[in-house]
């Protein structure tokens, strides 16, 4: 057992729990604090499950998707985005993007787990889901496809990550390709979960399924920059020339995608203002209850400030990138919230002109909802901070850990292994062959 562990640590650059033990007291305290939040979130969530969610959650009959669904969407959008941006490198061969792959795929998997742990506390009968999704599938239901496609996506990403660690580039590339296709399908379909509800004009239409893909790309770029620059703060050794080039490339893509999302947002507002069904909701963004969410978080923190800071950073001022993307992550969270909640604030009977539904509906997240959402986010953060130490900063290039028979590939910077009698060149061809 110990022998195989040593083997894995050599092959995968896996440093194990020892690396955590050797971390600074502050780092341990941070991890402990996150673990406490996760524990509290799980306890509060389970409490809600036992007493009945309708007693403790802020959601109602008419606003039945609340903070939990928003947080879930935040997680899965980021996960898909990490997959999309990292695939530019290790699936499509964009050399500059290659060094980010391991961290991105790892975080992509962790964000999926975070998302699933959040939605576990939103769905009333999660255990039934496992049974009836299989025994009684409804192939025209977007919700069914969401569960199925995200499940497949997670499996592909996990296999891909295994092959990334194993340095099997052809198989990791193949799995990455499947993961990307299924991931984009899953994610676009998540937009369609909203976009197909034709009683809800704010959501209805092809806008959301398309927006979700681009928005995921933006979130993914932001997340990669955030986690890479934060990783650099934790361990400056992870930065090398190749990684610096990768950060620069991701910064450029992220700037481009922010610009795309700015246009998406502009047209959402402008078309919504002349649409009878959306007008009230759009006005609540511009001047009403959601104006702070919209202007301060979504527009300023989520788009314009990071756009400015990322351009200023020129892709090589890592402190600036860390700030820009950290704030942007908060902005993006509100972006997701502003898709989910405002779509429900206008009652279906509002346009009938009746007294009961004359006002827009309101929703405030409850303590239980906030804690259950924090559980998912804490899971992601724990996985990140533990991963940075245990997986040695997801480094591909680390001379100390190049084991016998291995060498650093000049093409991708990863550690490759030569078979007996093989030259370095042959090994490189074998690792990078295209099927």
């Amino acid at each position, binding site marked *: 057992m110990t022998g195989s562990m040593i083997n894995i640590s050599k092959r995968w650059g896996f440093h194990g729990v020892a690396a955590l033990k050797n971390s600074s007291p502050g780092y341990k305290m941070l991890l402990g604090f996150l673990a406490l939040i996760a524990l509290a979130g799980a306890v509060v969530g389970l409490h809600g499950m036992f007493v*009945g969610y*309708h007693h403790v959650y802020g959601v109602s*009959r*008419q606003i*039945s*998707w609340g903070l939990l669904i928003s947080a879930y969407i935040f997680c899965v959008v980021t996960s898909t985005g990490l997959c999309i941006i990292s695939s530019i490198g290790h699936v499509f061969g964009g050399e500059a993007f290659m060094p980010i792959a391991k961290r991105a795929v790892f975080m992509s998997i962790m964000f999926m787990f975070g998302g699933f742990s959040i939605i576990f506390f939103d*769905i*009333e*009968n*999660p255990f*039934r*889901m496992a049974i*009836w*999704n299989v025994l*009684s*599938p*409804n192939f*025209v*239901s*977007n*919700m*069914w496809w*969401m*569960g199925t496609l995200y499940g497949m996506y997670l499996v592909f990403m996990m296999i891909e990550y295994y092959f990334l660690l194993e340095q099997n580039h052809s198989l990791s590339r193949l799995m990455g390709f499947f993961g990307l296709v299924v991931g984009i399908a899953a994610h676009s379909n998540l937009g369609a*979960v909203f976009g*197909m*509800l*034709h*009683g*809800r004009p704010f959501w209805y239409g092809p806008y959301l399924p398309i927006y979700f893909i681009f928005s995921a790309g933006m979130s993914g770029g932001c997340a990669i920059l955030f986690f890479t620059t934060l990783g650099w703060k934790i361990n400056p050794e992870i930065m090398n020339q190749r990684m610096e080039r990768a950060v620069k490339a991701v910064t450029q893509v992220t700037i481009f995608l922010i610009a795309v999302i700015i246009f998406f947002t502009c047209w959402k507002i402008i078309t919504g203002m002349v649409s*009878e069904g959306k007008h009230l909701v759009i006005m609540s963004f511009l001047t009403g209850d959601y104006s702070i969410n919209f202007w301060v978080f979504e527009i300023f923190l989520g788009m314009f400030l990071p756009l400015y800071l990322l351009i200023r950073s020129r892709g090589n001022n890592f402190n600036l990138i860390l700030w820009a993307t950290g704030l942007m992550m908060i902005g993006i969270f509100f972006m997701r919230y502003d898709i989910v909640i405002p779509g*429900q604030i206008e*009652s*279906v*009977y509002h*346009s*009938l*002109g*009746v*007294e*009961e*539904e004359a006002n827009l509906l309101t929703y405030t997240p409850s303590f239980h909802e906030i804690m259950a959402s924090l559980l998912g986010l804490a899971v992601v953060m724990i996985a990140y901070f533990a991963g940075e130490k245990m997986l040695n900063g997801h480094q591909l290039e680390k001379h100390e850990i190049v084991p016998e028979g291995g060498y650093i590939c000049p093409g991708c910077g990863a550690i490759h292994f030569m078979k007996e009698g093989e030259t370095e060149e042959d090994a490189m061809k074998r690792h990078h062959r295209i099927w």
Partner: protein
Amino acid sequence: MKLPKINFDNLKNEGTSSVTPQERRKFLKLGLAIAGVYAGGKILSLTSIVGTAHASGGGSIVKKYPYNPHYSMVIRQTLCIDCEKCVDKCNETNNVPDYGYRTRILTKKYSGTLDKQVEFIPVLCNHCNDAPCVRACPTRATYKDPITGIVRMESKKCIGCKTCMLACPYDARYFSAARRAVDKCDFCWEERLSKGETQTGCSSACPTGARTFGNLTDPENIVYKLVHQLEEKVWVLRPADDTKPNIFYMKGNMRSVDNILNEQKHKYFDPNKV
């Protein structure tokens, strides 16, 4: 710009004999549809239900009803007095908890009108032929009953994702903790109709006959008669969603009901039905 000259004086009178009954019917319906849109804005318009339930057309169209018995409810809005006996009866019959409801009565107020200032609009599940909730459900826990067309729940399959609640354009669904599933109106199928009753709880409790429940495929049925006429405008809620609902609305004041149901024994209230 030169405009084409039309000399009306020299046009030949084609006579009325060349107008087929179909064309005449289409013309009448067009007029009513315009009136409907004008009277109620986007939410009220006449019979967007074309293809499933025509407000006119009579016998030849009956074969288009996809279910038999095709259960339906006609709500004669003018007759509703907001006594809420229907809501109470529904809650009692179906064990609806205090945090939920299967049906409710909405109030619409008017100002500047001379005859009345308020109107009551009972709402419930519309048992749509193209039900968005049925499409949205991942596990087919909610389904169209293949015989009656009632949108029903198979509670054990409900995972509680609540997509159906958002898919429903009539706010007809809520999550019932006791059932551990989404609950909704089933036209009292489980509690009454399947046990041989002919009326739903709400329609049996209605003292004024505002809620009229029946079978749309039976030409003798009151619901059939109320829907298949041109005298009174019939509409459905949210026609733009095109869900082909089976709850029809009409003003249904005394005089027009008299005209429509001139041979019906009980026009407003059936003393035997409770």
